């Protein structure tokens, strides 16, 4: 039933109505038109399917945001950001300690995860096929797939127990360790986007290898590395499991690094599982703020990428 349009005699739509067109020519034209109609139909159906798939992909995000705003917005006020948690039954109260605690933990984790991750990524990109690079790349993928609660147990065993108590340090180490593989792989990918010709141009100008890597290659890849790093930051900002055995949470104001510290995910976890309605409402607001923080970080990442020139990013 398929007819190849090119093989048929001149059967253009215009020719079809000419009186001298034979019956077989008209039949061939009819077949061609039918084929075209069928193709157009299939095209429409497939485009529709893809729209649907795209919609399904973003639907969860839309639902989550919608639900969070509906449940959490009413509990959100200036007090939420500047007040401490209130005892049960008492109205008001906020999560100032948890918000600041989360920022402290993210800062600690970045101080560990970014230098190590970027350094390792640079090494992997520069020594692509060395044995150590192959092993590092593989282990970093394994580390990336490690359940975050395992990271928490690890930090508990090696930091919390020897130090004799929960601390912000141990949580920072756990989160930092989670950042390392993310930053390593994104840095490596971004550096590999820098063309070899650029590296050669620098070498040909008399740049040493170290200088080429640091001032030309790393600098060119910087916007992409910044983006990758901020994605990693956003990712660990919402981690809860590693904090259970490390930061532990704190009802009171504390930013001492060797004391238990509060964090938004923990506070959300405790409040959401509590039997009190006003606490559960605060948990929704906390979740909304957490997403807001991640969103702000993502926007900064985009902006930082746009503002500078260079490769990668976006």
């Amino acid at each position, binding site marked *: 039933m398929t007819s190849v349009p090119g093989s048929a005699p001149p059967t253009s739509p215009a020719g079809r109505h000419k009186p001298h067109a034979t019956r077989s020519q008209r039949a061939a034209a009819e077949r061609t038109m039918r084929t075209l109609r069928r193709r157009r139909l299939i095209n429409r159906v497939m485009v529709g399917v893809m729209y649907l798939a795209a919609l399904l992909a973003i639907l969860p995000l839309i639902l989550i945001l919608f639900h969070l705003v509906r449940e959490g917005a009413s509990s959100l006020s200036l007090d939420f950001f500047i007040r401490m948690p209130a005892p049960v039954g008492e109205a008001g109260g906020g999560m100032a300690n948890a918000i600041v605690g989360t920022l402290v933990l993210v800062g600690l984790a970045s101080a560990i995860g970014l230098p190590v991750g970027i350094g390792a990524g640079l090494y992997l990109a520069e020594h692509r096929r060395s044995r150590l690079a192959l092993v590092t790349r593989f282990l970093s993928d394994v580390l990336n797939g490690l359940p975050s609660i395992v990271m928490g147990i690890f930090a508990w065993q090696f930091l919390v127990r020897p130090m004799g108590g929960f601390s912000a340090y141990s949580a920072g180490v756990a989160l930092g360790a989670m950042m390392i593989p993310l930053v390593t792989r994104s840095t490596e990918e971004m550096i590999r986007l820098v*063309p070899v*010709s*650029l590296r*050669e*141009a*620098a*070498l*040909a*100008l*008399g*740049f*040493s290898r170290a*200088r080429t890597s640091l001032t*030309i290659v790393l*600098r*060119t890849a*910087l916007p992409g590395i910044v983006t990758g790093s901020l994605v990693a930051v956003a990712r660990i900002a919402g981690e809860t499991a590693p904090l259970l055995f490390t930061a532990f949470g704190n009802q009171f104001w504390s930013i001492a690094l060797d004391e238990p510290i509060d964090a938004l995910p923990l506070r959300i976890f405790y409040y959401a599982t509590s039997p009190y309605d006003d606490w559960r409402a605060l948990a929704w607001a906390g979740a909304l703020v957490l997403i807001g923080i991640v969103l702000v970080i993502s926007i900064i990442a985009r902006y930082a990428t746009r503002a*500078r*020139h*260079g*490769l990668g990013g976006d």
Partner: protein
Amino acid sequence: MALAETDRRLVRLTGRTASGPADPGKEETRVAVRGLNAFYGSTQVVRDVSVDFHAHEVTAVIGPSGCGKSTMLRCLNRMHETAPDTRVSGCVELDGRDIYGRDVSAISIRRHVGMVFQRPTPFPTMSIRDNVGAGLRVLPGGMPARGEVDVIVERALRSAALWDEVKDRLSDNATGLSGGQQQRLCIARALATSPRVLLLDEPTASLDPISTQAIEELVYELRREVTVVIVTHNMQQAARVSDRTAFMLSGELVEVAPSSVLFTNPGDARTEDYITGRFG
């Protein structure tokens, strides 16, 4: 006078003696290649090449794809060894000094032997000014003062016939230039450190005809300042811009002769076959 002062400083920095226009009666050998072999892994791509490149001349290197002409060029500033698993044997002398000598650093050689590649390679994070001045940052003794840099940048851009087009936007990003302008920028960048030799590896391969013509005219002019070796696929280009032409085939140097002679009356049958289009 600022320029004279800068010249003296550059002489001090690069060890280059200021040299005037070529004396046409006297041939001075700038680079002498003797028995050069180059390998990628166990594959030999340059076989026992010996050739002289004369000061203030443009020497073109032609030959079919894969004949080793680019690799030979990359041996002249020790770029070949930057690729993994490569090896060089033989001798390349720059003004009588073996650049593969035991106590010679590749980095110092590359300051004296500039190179421009097939595709333009401006540093995308730098302005036009910083691109041209990039090589000055790594001179021994550090970056010259800002005023000196401006003088050197202007002179290099003038030498590369780009000054008039970019003088009002030196702080703009270099990636905003057209392909031909970018390539001339790369030439300016290579000239800024006053190299003794300039290596051009098919510098017009990725350019349109008008940009190609601009580069060719530039190359023709550059011989007054610097010794030029240009690798090209294009025989007409070799004939237009060069004083002498070397023909390579399968890693060997077949012959080298004044361009007017090589293209009209080649000494070797293989050269004749190639330039008359019988192969390659």
